[in-house]
């Protein structure tokens, strides 16, 4: 038998293999080093990406307070019972095997996917039944919801029952063991202590899964977000960024299936910044009550600071019905009564007789009106062949400027407007900010307010500008469109003897100092001219059209109006009351606007809006005196 020499190392043929093996070993070591040293970080980050998940948790929104520190918008906790699926892993596995065993007994062929679903449903329903027995409900799990949760939101707790009542929450707190897989979960919903008051100003929120990261660690990780809130209207939308809290979050190590395995990092969420609005909720409630069931708006401004003390728009809605979500029926009910519209900032109306003040100012500036101006009102005024009527068909007789304003006689303004011309009148209106948004801190303020002129009419291809258009415009009719807020700004400006007021919903006491009050260019009237205007407005309150707004011991400057607008083919009156008080040292500017909604309403400025203005002014002046 030939013996094989194994250990002969001096065989020259073997020398060939040494360098080959050496090179191969080098390659192996280099590969090892490459993977262990050079690619170490890449593998580590890959491992992190595969095994870590992040949950983003939105911060609670900031509160909104009125100017006196009363809570207007807060947060209420919403409790729900949830199941932490990671803690149910063993139960799910055992139930799955049981279901498989049962299925094998029944059928020869098993649909494992269906069995898995059944096991999940059984386990979760069992826990839900425990909760049902504690709180006396009979809730069932929807398989569709459960499957969606397992496939998309496995890391998040599965909601079993949402929006528990305080009694249910208390019972579950006490009767669910501290370490059970079923726990209570707390979310927040917006809470409005005054319900429908100032609904259009405050606005409401909707839900979003788009939560800001706010420095929560693990930016590169697969992230699940709990539902957050986003402002949809009013101040909630305008100040959304400020109100949004800072997001918190958790980073979890997950097992291969995706269940929570180990808590790695946590960052607490924090509440958003608070906002102090200029709204005086007591005055707001008074105005809401005074406006009652009328469709319309009330705006009260602080003359000196431009702060909006009250902004009412009716019909309105209860903000609490829109949280935590807007039910379809509620949405439709609000839609049907036209309550989504904020009539104070979005409603477009011909301003009516309060616009006569602008015509007067334009006339005074053009030296067409002075203390000697006397108008003979015979009830109508002819422009060409067309008769333009005064409110009193029988005529007012001889009237000076103050009386024309007080009695809201049209004739003086028809004549003046025709003398100064459309462009000058439009220019004066624009000087007061009509025709452009006020810039108030509420989204969707109407940008369609209009001060018409001949160029505009031509551009719109509505024909040539006619003298009749000018006379219509002089009394706040025709194509003129403004919002109640714009008219309130005009009143505040007039009260200060200036041309512009920039309204704000933010209460800033530092603006109350003399140096930082609202300031714009003066109207451009002499003291006498301005006094004449004021006297006319005061007379309107004392003995004229606004006499229903008279308050004892307070001098009030007012101008009422009744304009006409066409709504769904029907002519409707728009009743106005605009003014400020006290007339000698103005602090409050007010505008009340009421729309006719029925054929038999027969609304008019003095009849309908002045009594409302009186109630609001009384409260406003009382508040001012007490503060």
């Amino acid at each position, binding site marked *: 038998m030939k013996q094989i020499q194994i250990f002969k190392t001096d065989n020259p043929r073997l020398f060939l293999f040494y360098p080959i093996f050496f090179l191969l070993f080098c390659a192996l070591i280099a590969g090892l080093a490459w993977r262990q040293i050079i690619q170490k970080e890449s593998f580590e980050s890959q491992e992190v990406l595969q095994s870590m998940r992040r949950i983003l948790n939105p911060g*609670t929104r900031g509160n909104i307070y009125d100017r006196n520190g009363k809570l207007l918008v807060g947060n209420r906790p919403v409790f729900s019972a949830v199941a932490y699926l990671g803690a149910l892993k063993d139960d799910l596995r055992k139930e799955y095997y049981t279901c498989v065993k049962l299925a094998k007994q029944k059928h020869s062929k098993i649909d494992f996917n269906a069995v898995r679903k059944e096991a999940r449903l059984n386990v979760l329903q069992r826990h839900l039944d*425990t909760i049902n027995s504690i709180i006396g409900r009979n809730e069932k799990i929807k398989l569709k919801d459960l499957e969606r949760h397992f496939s998309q939101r496995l890391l998040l707790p599965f909601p079993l029952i949402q929006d528990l009542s305080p009694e249910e929450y208390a*019972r579950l707190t*006490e009767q669910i063991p501290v370490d059970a897989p079923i726990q209570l979960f707390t979310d927040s919903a917006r809470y409005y202590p005054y319900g429908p008051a100032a609904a259009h100003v405050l606005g409401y929120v909707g839900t979003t899964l788009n939560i800001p990261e706010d420095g929560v660690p693990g930016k590169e990780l697969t992230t699940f977000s709990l539902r957050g809130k986003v402002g949809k209207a009013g101040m909630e939308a305008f100040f959304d960024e400020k109100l949004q809290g800072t997001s918190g979050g958790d980073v979890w190590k997950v097992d291969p299936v995706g269940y929570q395995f180990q808590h790695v990092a946590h960052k607490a969420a924090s509440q958003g910044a608070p906002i102090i609005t200029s709204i005086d909720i007591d005055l707001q409630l008074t105005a809401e009550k005074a406006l009652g069931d009328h469709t319309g708006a009330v705006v009260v401004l602080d003359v000196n600071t431009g702060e909006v003390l009250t902004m009412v728009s009716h019909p309105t809605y209860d903000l609490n019905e829109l949280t935590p979500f807007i039910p379809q029926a509620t949405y439709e009910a609000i839609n049907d009564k036209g309550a989504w519209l904020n009539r104070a900032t979005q409603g477009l109306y011909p301003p009516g007789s309060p616009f006569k003040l602008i015509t007067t100012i334009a006339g005074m500036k053009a030296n067409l009106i002075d203390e000697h101006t006397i108008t003979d009102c015979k009830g109508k005024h002819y422009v060409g062949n067309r008769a333009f009527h005064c409110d009193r068909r029988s005529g007012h007789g001889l009237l000076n400027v103050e009386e024309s304003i007080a009695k809201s006689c049209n004739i003086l303004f028809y004549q003046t407007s025709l003398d100064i011309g459309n462009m000058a009148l439009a220019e004066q209106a624009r000087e007061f900010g009509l025709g452009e948004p006020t810039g108030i801190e509420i989204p969707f303020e109407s940008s369609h307010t209009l001060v018409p002129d001949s160029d505009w009419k031509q551009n719109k291809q509505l024909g040539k500008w006619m003298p009749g258009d000018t006379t219509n415009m002089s009394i706040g009719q025709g194509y003129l469109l403004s919002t109640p807020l714009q008219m309130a700004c005009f009143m505040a400006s007039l009260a200060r003897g200036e041309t512009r007021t920039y309204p704000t919903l933010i209460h800033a006491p530092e603006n109350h100092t003399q140096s930082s009050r609202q300031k714009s260019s003066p109207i451009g009237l002499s003291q006498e001219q301005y006094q004449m205007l004021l006297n006319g407005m005061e007379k309107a309150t004392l003995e004229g059209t606004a006499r229903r707004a008279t308050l004892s011991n307070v001098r009030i400057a007012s101008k009422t109006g009744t304009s006409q607008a066409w709504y769904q083919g029907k002519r409707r009156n728009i009743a106005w009351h605009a003014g400020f008080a006290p007339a000698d040292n103005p602090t409050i500017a007010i505008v009340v606007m009421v729309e006719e909604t029925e054929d038999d309403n027969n609304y008019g400025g003095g009849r309908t809006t002045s009594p409302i203005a009186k109630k609001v002014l009384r409260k406003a002046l009382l508040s001012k005196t007490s503060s």
Partner: protein
Amino acid sequence: MGKSSVHARPLVLLGCLLLIWWFVPPFIKSFVQVNFFELQAPAWSAASHLKDLQLYWSLRNHSQQELIEAGRDLARLNSAYELSRQKEAALNKEIEHLEKMLNLPPLPNYNYEVARVTRRDINQWWQQLVIRKGKDHGIIEGAPVVYAGGVVGRIQKVFKNTAIVELISSPNFRIAASFEGDRRPVIYQGVGTPAFSNPRGIIHNVPPDYTTESTPKRLVTSRLGGTFPEGLVLGQVDELKARSDGLFQEGKVSLPQNLMSLSEVAILIPLDEDVDTTI
């Protein structure tokens, strides 16, 4: 085979024991546990009886004068309690009347079972008492346990003649509570007993508008939780701190020190069968 196998024997023993324990059905474990507890229960009961006897003999040593004084004090206390009892009876009738008027469900009634404490097991891991009454005396799991100073805890396990009470300072003890004079529910949970200090708890989910206004507030039980009757004292809250989410406040609860030296407690056994105290 020799030295190494000898050394491996303990590991084999450990492995075998672990395997056996792993495969033993839960009911057998439970059976062993109950029996081991029942086995030692007489020893603890005997020790407790001995202590009672000791107390009895120490009381016997009091002079006649002391007994006369104690009797007089007791008589005064009795008359005060009699007055309270009559008032309570009148109030109960009023409550019944109001319940009927408002169509409210009646408040749950309880039967009181007084029991001696045979053993206290209070440390950083668990906080429990063993009492000298059990299944034979109608004690049920989850029943509230109280004493003159307020809440003691909840029955955790019941044996034949003994039961284990989980103390309110236990981190596993969580109930719905409320501040005295305020019905809104808050969550109370025990956190343990620090050395040389009062046992403690914490409260969560306190509404943000609630203030302790520089004076400590008493925390009492809320009947909303379904286990405890309303108004039993839990402890005192000295300070509340707002949580970063702004939704709630939380605070520490200081529990009475005598909770740690109780010798007698009362178990409230619900009379109404509909009142479910189990989980």
